[in-house]
């Protein structure tokens, strides 16, 4: 029995079959139940854990149809249009589903009907029923109004008016009901009788292409995974090829016989049209998983889906080698990204700014716009390089000895090493972009420095002396210096 605090009193939220035989009903105060059955076992209500579990079950239900929707906090709606024949017929599908869930330790009630509302009402009022199309009104008529899943206030209102079953409500004129309970209730009623239908909202969009492999006996070895994926990839690619599609994102789902589902997805920059590529990407991805696939008691279904697909044009490779160089590099990037993660394989795109740390924007190769290779980088200004080869991730504060407060440094200490400056060039003044932020920061005066060992540095003074940074008579308020980059 599960209890939670509602309106400052502990109420029963849910109870099992034994408890209801003892007269316990959801909605009763816990104190009453305790008085009736002092030995009752009470568990605190944990809505979050319930939601997680329901989502896991919904994941598992993906094996019956790609369109699975959550129905409130305790139900699932499956749109099985066009799926039933894969399992024999509708009755066989429902038997298979409920039997599997019972094996997993859940109590279920299921029903099949032409509309979502009718099916919901039937699961609550008459489980295991399968209603033929057009027969909904007759099937739901004897059910209590509460089975519709509408607001409690409406149910109470109808009961007070003496309308207990859906059939009694349907006998009333819709205009009377609408005046009392609102248009929405009428819409629900129309859906319950099959006069109207509303689509369910699936948890995730249906993939464009799906192929499955069922195992009559669960397979518990990991070496079967890659060959199975290869076989599935062949089917999938063949199906996609017929409609001229290539996959940009592939998801492999592993359904364990105990109900756990694990999905692994790989993304590519170029649409995949070749089986070897699919196999290689998944081999990399499975190899690099932080927590590897755990077959547990074995998989009984492995599925491969193309969740994002784009139209591809079959192009013959010409003799021009530069054209497919980029393609080969993209393929390599996909492989490396599958293993290391997309954010670790990047290209840099120039940005329209003069703040040194923002000039180059790292973009994952897979997400690079196709014309990224064309964006020109600003031309070099003059002979000696004015920008460092390596830019520190964060400018590092340094201690500087300067001849004059707004002049170049004569000596500085960086990372506990003293460097004596032999040559300095600057300042190159870079003002922050006031149009981007309200507090853009101080103007930087950059200096190119060479020390006595020949090492070349790029450092800056933060703030204009006596304009942005005001020195105090006691020696404080001096501008700070930072090391920002290193020249070759």
């Amino acid at each position, binding site marked *: 029995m599960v209890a939670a605090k509602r309106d400052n009193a502990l109420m029963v939220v849910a109870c099992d079959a034994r408890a209801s035989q003892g007269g316990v009903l959801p909605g009763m105060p816990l104190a009453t139940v305790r008085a009736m059955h002092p030995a009752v076992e009470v568990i605190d209500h944990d809505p979050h854990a319930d939601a997680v579990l329901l989502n896991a079950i919904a994941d598992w239900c993906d094996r019956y149809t790609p369109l699975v929707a959550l129905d409130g906090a305790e139900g699932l709606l499956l749109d099985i249009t066009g799926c039933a024949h894969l399992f024999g017929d509708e009755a066989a599908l429902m038997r298979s589903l409920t039997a599997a869930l019972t094996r997993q330790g859940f109590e279920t009630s299921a029903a099949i009907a032409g509309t979502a509302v009718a099916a919901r009402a039937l699961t609550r009022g008459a489980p295991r029923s399968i209603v033929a199309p057009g027969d909904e009104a007759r099937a739901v008529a004897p059910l209590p109004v509460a089975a519709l899943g509408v607001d409690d206030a409406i149910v109470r209102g109808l009961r007070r008016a003496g309308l207990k079953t859906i059939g009694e409500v349907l006998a009333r004129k819709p205009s009377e009901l609408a005046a009392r309970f609102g248009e929405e209730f009428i819409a629900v009623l129309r859906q319950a009788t099959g006069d109207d239908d509303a689509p369910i909202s699936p948890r995730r969009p249906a993939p464009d292409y799906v192929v499955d492999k069922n195992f009559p006996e669960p397979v518990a070895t990991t070496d079967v995974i890659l060959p199975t994926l290869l076989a599935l990839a062949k089917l999938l690619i063949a199906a996609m090829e017929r409609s001229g599609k290539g996959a940009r994102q592939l998801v492999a789902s592993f359904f364990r016989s105990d109900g756990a589902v694990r999905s692994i997805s790989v993304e590519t920059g170029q649409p995949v049209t070749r089986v070897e590529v699919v196999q290689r990407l998944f081999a990399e991805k499975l190899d690099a998983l932080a927590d590897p696939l755990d077959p547990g008691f074995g998989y009984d279904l492995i599925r491969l889906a193309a969740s994002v697909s784009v139209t591809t044009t079959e192009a013959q490779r010409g003799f021009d080698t530069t054209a497919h160089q980029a393609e080969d590099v993209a393929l390599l990037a996909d492989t490396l990204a599958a293993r*290391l993660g997309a954010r670790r394989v990047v290209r840099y795109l120039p940005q329209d700014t003069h703040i040194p740390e923002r000039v180059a924007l790292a973009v994952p190769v897979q997400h690079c716009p196709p014309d990224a290779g064309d964006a020109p980088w600003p031309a070099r200004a003059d002979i000696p390089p004015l920008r460092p080869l390596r830019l520190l991730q964060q400018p590092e504060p340094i201690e500087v000895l300067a001849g004059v407060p707004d002049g170049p440094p004569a000596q500085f200490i960086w990372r506990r090493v003293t460097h004596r400056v032999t040559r300095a060039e600057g300042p190159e003044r870079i003002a922050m972009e006031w149009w981007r932020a309200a507090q853009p920061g101080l103007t930087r005066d950059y200096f190119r420095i060479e020390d006595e060992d020949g090492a070349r540095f790029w450092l800056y003074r933060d703030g204009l002396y006596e304009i942005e940074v005001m020195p105090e008579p006691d020696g404080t308020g001096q501008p700070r210096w930072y090391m920002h980059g290193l020249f070759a």
Partner: protein
Amino acid sequence: MDGARHSMLARLKGEIDRLESGTAETLRRVPLGHAEADAVLQGGLVQGALHEVFCDGAQAPAATGFAAGVARLLADQRFLLWIRQDFSARENGELAMEGLAELGLDPRRIVMVSAHDADSALRAAADALACNALGAVITELWGDTRAFDQVASRKLTLAAQDSGVTALMLRIAAAPQASTAETRWMVRAAHSPPSEDWGAPVLDTSLIRNRHGQTGRWIMEWNCDACQFREPQTHSRLVAAEVADRSVRTSVTSAGQRLAG
């Protein structure tokens, strides 16, 4: 019997010589642009081989510059894959695209890969070297590592030979160790020549291993315009392009004469 054995041995030796000279001929060498170094390297650095660049922890920028220059020469406008260990970026900063562009490399042709550790960096390098669309693969590792042993270096060498993609190892704060590298360099920064527009990379490079020749030590300057190394220039702007086969001293005096004239 004995004679037959001798003749067979001679034949096999001849076969081996032919194979060896044959491979040596098919290797493409790219001149660095520094006359003396190119002479020692018998024409330049070999493409499709493993080259190593070592440096002290504090000399990372200089070694980066040298590796970037060598990669620019060997990759020859093709894509460049730069694999770096995360720790190296934390310690020595990220590779700056503006700076690379100023050295004459094209940031649009650079793909950057960040690896957690030396193992994954080397694995990525081995995969990348199989992709012959690339010009060069630079693997930047920080510190001494057990991951890059003889076996790993052999793997990279073979992969580079098969595809013709040059493998460059940039070993920051690491001590040179035995490997199958074609050449091994030790790089540190050198003083800029006394001129007004100082700042181009001037590097003190030591060739400490050369599989097919002698070693040596030279001061090289990277010429950002010609995208080649050269002898350091005492005068800032040479009027004419320098002649490739002139020694350091003559080039210095000629520069001086031009200055006087």
